[in-house]
């Protein structure tokens, strides 16, 4: 068996911007520009970044909901970008997605039973009716929805319960990989922790891998083994969660960590002065030259403008894309 469940190699996704005479393509939105990573069986990769950094596009590209512009997505040893749509449809059994908004991602005209049974009927046509019923029942109790609710419609459930149904639907085909695109962002904190626990429990039970996309560092830290920080379509730092939180190297990661508000009590130590980044994220249509972060970077110098970005390994399993690595302290 291949050690890596998923290998992403130099994935690029550009969206054309049309305009002018004859509606020509006049520009490109560079949503994802060259992302590479590996994901092992049973591992969780967290992807954090601000809005517009391309994290959702990357998630959709892994799911093949978007055709990538270039690059390879190797899942279980097979390059998904080279499959025909028919072959791809069969392969979809092994990777599923959970969306952010539990209100719009469930078909309002289908009952819970239909929502959960449909993927089973599709991917396991050999199953008999009674077997499907049995599986739906197990699935419902797995995700914490009482099996007697199977004839109810999505609008009869609260946001947290709907997200449980979405998770159940993703699990119905017994996938090896689940992409979670901001699965808890629309939920209240007390419900959020219920869903995070559920995701962790399910992973322990069924041993699949997660790609967990979120803007919330607390949440990503809680659930991930490895974390990738994304800025303007690039990974700027990839590390294990311990490395990232104890020894962040990239100036953007540092700023991000310092910007996150934390709960302080009388006993907590005073935090260091907050690094407040100036300015906004540049437009992905015309990203800056060289390192994309240099216009906002506190340690940028003249050479950053022409630097060719690349991830450099600073310690085992800890990759950083910054020219000025030497001047940052590395333990």
């Amino acid at each position: 068996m291949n050690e890596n469940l998923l290998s992403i190699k130099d994935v690029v996704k550009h969206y054309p911007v049309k305009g002018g005479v004859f509606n020509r393509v006049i520009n490109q939105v560079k949503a994802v520009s060259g992302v590479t990573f590996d994901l092992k069986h049973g591992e969780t990769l967290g992807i954090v970044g601000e809005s517009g950094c391309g994290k959702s596009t990357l998630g959709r590209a892994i799911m093949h909901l978007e055709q990538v512009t270039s690059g390879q997505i190797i899942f279980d040893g097979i390059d998904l970008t080279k499959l025909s749509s028919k072959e791809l449809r069969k392969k979809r059994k092994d990777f599923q997605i959970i969306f952010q908004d539990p209100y719009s991602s469930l078909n309002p005209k289908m009952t819970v039973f239909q929502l959960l049974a449909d993927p089973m009927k599709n991917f396991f046509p050999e199953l008999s009716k009674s077997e499907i019923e049995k599986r739906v029942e197990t699935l419902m109790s797995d995700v914490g929805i009482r099996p007697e609710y199977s004839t109810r419609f999505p609008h009869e459930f609260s946001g947290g319960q709907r997200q449980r149904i979405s998770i159940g639907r993703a699990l119905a085909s017994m996938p090896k990989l689940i992409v979670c695109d901001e699965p808890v962002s629309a939920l209240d904190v007390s419900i959020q922790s219920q869903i995070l626990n559920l995701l962790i429990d399910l992973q322990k039970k069924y041993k699949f891998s997660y790609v967990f996309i979120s803007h919330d560092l607390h949440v990503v830290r809680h659930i991930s083994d490895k974390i990738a920080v994304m800025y303007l379509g690039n990974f700027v730092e990839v590390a294990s969660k311990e490395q990232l939180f104890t020894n962040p190297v990239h100036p953007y990661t540092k700023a991000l960590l310092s910007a996150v508000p934390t709960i302080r009590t009388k006993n907590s130590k005073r935090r260091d002065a907050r690094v407040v980044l100036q300015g906004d994220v540049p437009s992905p249509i015309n990203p800056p030259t060289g390192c994309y972060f240099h216009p906002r970077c506190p340690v940028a110098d003249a050479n950053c403008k022409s630097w060719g970005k690349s991830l450099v390994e600073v310690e085992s399993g800890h990759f950083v894309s910054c020219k000025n690595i030497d001047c940052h302290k590395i333990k």
Partner: protein
Amino acid sequence: MRLQIKDLWVEFHTFDGVVKAVNGVTLDVAEGEILGIVGESGSGKSVATHAILGLVPMPPGKISKGEILFEGENLLTKSEEELNKIRGRSIGMIFQEPMTSLNPVFTIGDQIVEALKIHFPHLNKLEAKQRAVDALKQVGIPSPESRFDCYPHELSGGMRQRAMIAISLVCDPKLLIADEPTTALDVTIQAQILDIINDLREKRKLSVILITHDLAIISETADKVAVMYAGRVVESGPVEEIFSNPKHPYTKGLLKCIPHVDEQSRPKGERLNTIEGTVPDLRSLPPGCAFYNRCSRKIDSCLDKVPYFINCGAEHFVSCINVE
């Protein structure tokens, strides 16, 4: 006291019955103080503060009881005309959605000047523009003179939220109500906006009511905090005190629900604490404590009546009959 809310009750009469959104809320904000109101969706935090400026739609809304005193005057008995003199002048407000709360067909400058002209009709064009540019500068918008002529769609989310703050501050209000001001923004931009609010409080002795669902923002920004649940304040007090020594089972549960970035790394797969169940239906609140069905410390007498506030010292009040 700059603002005092005394025993406020707000209900909405709908076809499905009477929704009791706010049930006896008492709060106060002093000069130069930041009061944080925290609660989950449906806890009544927005309704309670919208009532201050008379922004609760009536009907279906109805303020059935209570007083809102702003510098000693009851806002609830004022006519619409009198309220209009206060709205935007002495009390400013920022809403959550910077995308939808600005008018897309007017420039940022026009919208700031409009707010100014309503309360200071004697200002001439140049003076008004100067004050608007000053307001933009104050909220940290780079090159404010050129931004003055920009339309909202030309600005980023963070810039728009700054423009909103500039509008609400241009008349130099005494109280700012910020309803989830950073929820739609990214963390690095959120840090900038919270810095601005803190800065204004210090420089202008501005009082702020900061409404959010994010406990960490309250912990970093506010002086005092009120925790709301099902239309009631369940615990209130100084921020440090509440976060280091929470008393109410709901506050405790809420604090444990959140994964902390600050903490030492936890082993992977460790479960978070949860509060089981969901918020009760505001149309049929149970008698007594509204948190009863989710509470870990419930006893039979919790259902008898709504618990009184107990003073646990140092301005720390909790509404629970079975505190540890």
